[in-house]
């Protein structure tokens, strides 16, 4: 059996890929050079659009389409790399930043060329303090080596990259909250429209792309859209890094084609459930997931954007949390709600108040202090939040609650009695 050819986690096959000379030996910056010297910006956008690359941060929006929204009448344009990875269960961008940082930077540079941005920011969560230190060194090396600066490859294109550290706020992963934070304000989402494509960083047209999304770009430019589409499914092309965690023998990141089944990820790659226990449920998108009961049919579901929507859940950033039969789902729902209550930015009332009350009610349930009416009250609060929050944080906070009540209601009563 030939070894799997990694596209994103290439550092697992190539030692020291985080060193510039090693990255260059393995074809590094060929794609960026090709884009700048042989392609028009519009051709880069077309190639990425044809590849069908979809945003890997969670929303799954087509990257090339997002780029094409920037008006060529308003300047300057900015590109912001979203490295604020904070969804419980997600640790993929961290591995790219640590192991394969130049591929991420090259992707960012290609994105900048595509939308003709001369300045890019990498917004890292504050906890990635060490990763930021390393990234700054690498950006310095790229400036020294002439891959960043003025007149790149003898062209008129100039590019500089800066980094900006967040300081512990999950909401800053939401792109408009991220931009507010980068402007020195509270990380609270903006009302949209206008979208960042027309009114983004400093009020200028801006693209915000996730680290993993950007790391896909050198491959697309070097090998083309057809090559990219030879992986994954028709509507969800390419490979994806699945962050596997929870009650599983081998948690970790797994780079697999989109459309791989849960069963293959959890049992073949992840080594199954510890201590001979049975799998009970799956949260495919971290704490933001609608919980999927782990039926045989669910385990055979391909992990791609459409198939998970058909299961009334979502792929999100593909952070697969595995739950075994020892876990009480009322406790699990309380954990997720506690997270969202802590991370709610407080700007909109449904989320601020809703997450607060859901946390109170689930706490009572878990601590055996609830009345039978509290289960219905929880359902009522969650249902009333639906569709009324300013951003996805509030909308996601009710996913585990409603799906937990739908599929595992007896756990809530069991927890009450105990």
């Amino acid at each position: 059996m030939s070894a799997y050819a990694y596209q994103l986690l290439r550092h697992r096959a190539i030692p020291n890929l985080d060193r510039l000379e090693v990255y260059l030996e393995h074809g590094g910056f060929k794609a960026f050079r090709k884009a700048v010297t042989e392609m028009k910006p519009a051709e880069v956008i077309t190639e990425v659009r044809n590849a069908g690359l979809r945003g890997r941060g969670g929303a799954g929006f087509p990257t090339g389409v997002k780029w094409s929204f920037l008006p060529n009448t308003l300047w300057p344009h900015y590109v912001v790399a979203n490295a604020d990875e904070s969804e419980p269960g997600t640790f993929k961008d961290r591995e790219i930043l640590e192991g394969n940082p130049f591929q991420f930077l090259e992707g960012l540079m290609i994105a900048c060329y595509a939308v003709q941005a001369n300045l890019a920011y990498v917004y890292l969560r504050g906890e990635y303090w060490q990763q930021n230190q390393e990234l700054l060194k690498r950006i310095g090396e790229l400036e020294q080596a002439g891959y960043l600066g003025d007149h790149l490859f003898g062209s008129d294109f100039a590019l500089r990259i800066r980094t900006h550290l967040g300081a512990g706020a999950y909401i800053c992963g939401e792109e408009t909250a991220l931009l507010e934070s980068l402007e020195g304000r509270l990380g609270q989402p903006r009302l949209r429209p206008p979208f960042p494509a027309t009114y983004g960083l400093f009020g200028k047209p801006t693209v915000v792309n996730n680290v993993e999304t950007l790391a896909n770009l050198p491959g697309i430019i070097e090998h083309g859209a057809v090559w990219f589409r030879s992986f994954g499914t028709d509507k969800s092309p390419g490979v994806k890094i699945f962050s596997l965690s929870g009650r599983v023998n081998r948690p970790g990141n797994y780079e697999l084609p989109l459309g791989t089944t849960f069963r293959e990820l959890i049992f073949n790659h992840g080594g199954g459930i510890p201590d001979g226990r049975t799998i009970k449920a799956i949260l495919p998108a971290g704490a933001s997931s609608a919980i999927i009961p782990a039926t045989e049919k669910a385990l055979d579901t391909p992990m791609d954007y459409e198939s998970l929507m058909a299961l009334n859940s979502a792929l999100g950033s593909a952070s697969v949390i595995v739950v075994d039969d020892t876990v009480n789902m009322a406790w699990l729902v309380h954990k997720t709600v506690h997270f969202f209550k802590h991370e709610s930015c407080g700007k909109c009332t449904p989320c601020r108040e809703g997450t607060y009350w859901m946390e109170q009610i689930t706490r009572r349930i878990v601590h055996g202090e609830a009345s039978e009416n509290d289960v219905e009250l929880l359902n009522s609060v969650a249902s009333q939040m639906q569709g009324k929050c300013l951003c996805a944080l509030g909308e996601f906070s009710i996913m585990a609650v409603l799906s937990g009540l739908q599929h595992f209601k007896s756990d809530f009563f069991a927890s009450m009695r105990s």
Partner: protein
Amino acid sequence: MNQLLSQHTEEIKRILDNYPANQKRSAVMPLLYLAQAQRGYINKQTLTEIGEIIGISPTEVASIVGFYTLFYDEAGGRYRIQVCTDLPCALRGAEEFLEKLCANLNIKVGGTTADGLVTVEEVTCLAGCHRAPMFQVQDEHGLSYHENQTIESAMALVEELRNRHLQPGKEDAE
């Protein structure tokens, strides 16, 4: 006189240069990190000094400190041990780990050891879910991750921090 500015003139210039000249406000978080590295938290004088540098009110700077969890407005232990107990970590025993760690240090969650060395805090996801129990240590020099932890390894680290702190000549004059 603006002490922060006079003590870190070059560094502050470098920070401001990262942003367009008319967008100085963007520097508020890097400036808070710079100031916090001096004494571990942000005091009122710093709010005023940062406000002066970027042209916003001290109240606005204070709102940033209040919003973001990595900034502090009061002193804690010299080292903050921040244990993640979010769902994926909890499924790998992080809640019991936190409880035992605090019991071993004879403090409550959020408390500081009697010698002022260590504060233990419960935090949300740190992107180390696959290597739980895990925590980060925040001190004046930055942040470091400690993963696949046991009570034994965590207590050994506390001992190491204690020794580092007590080494003659290494102690800061405050």
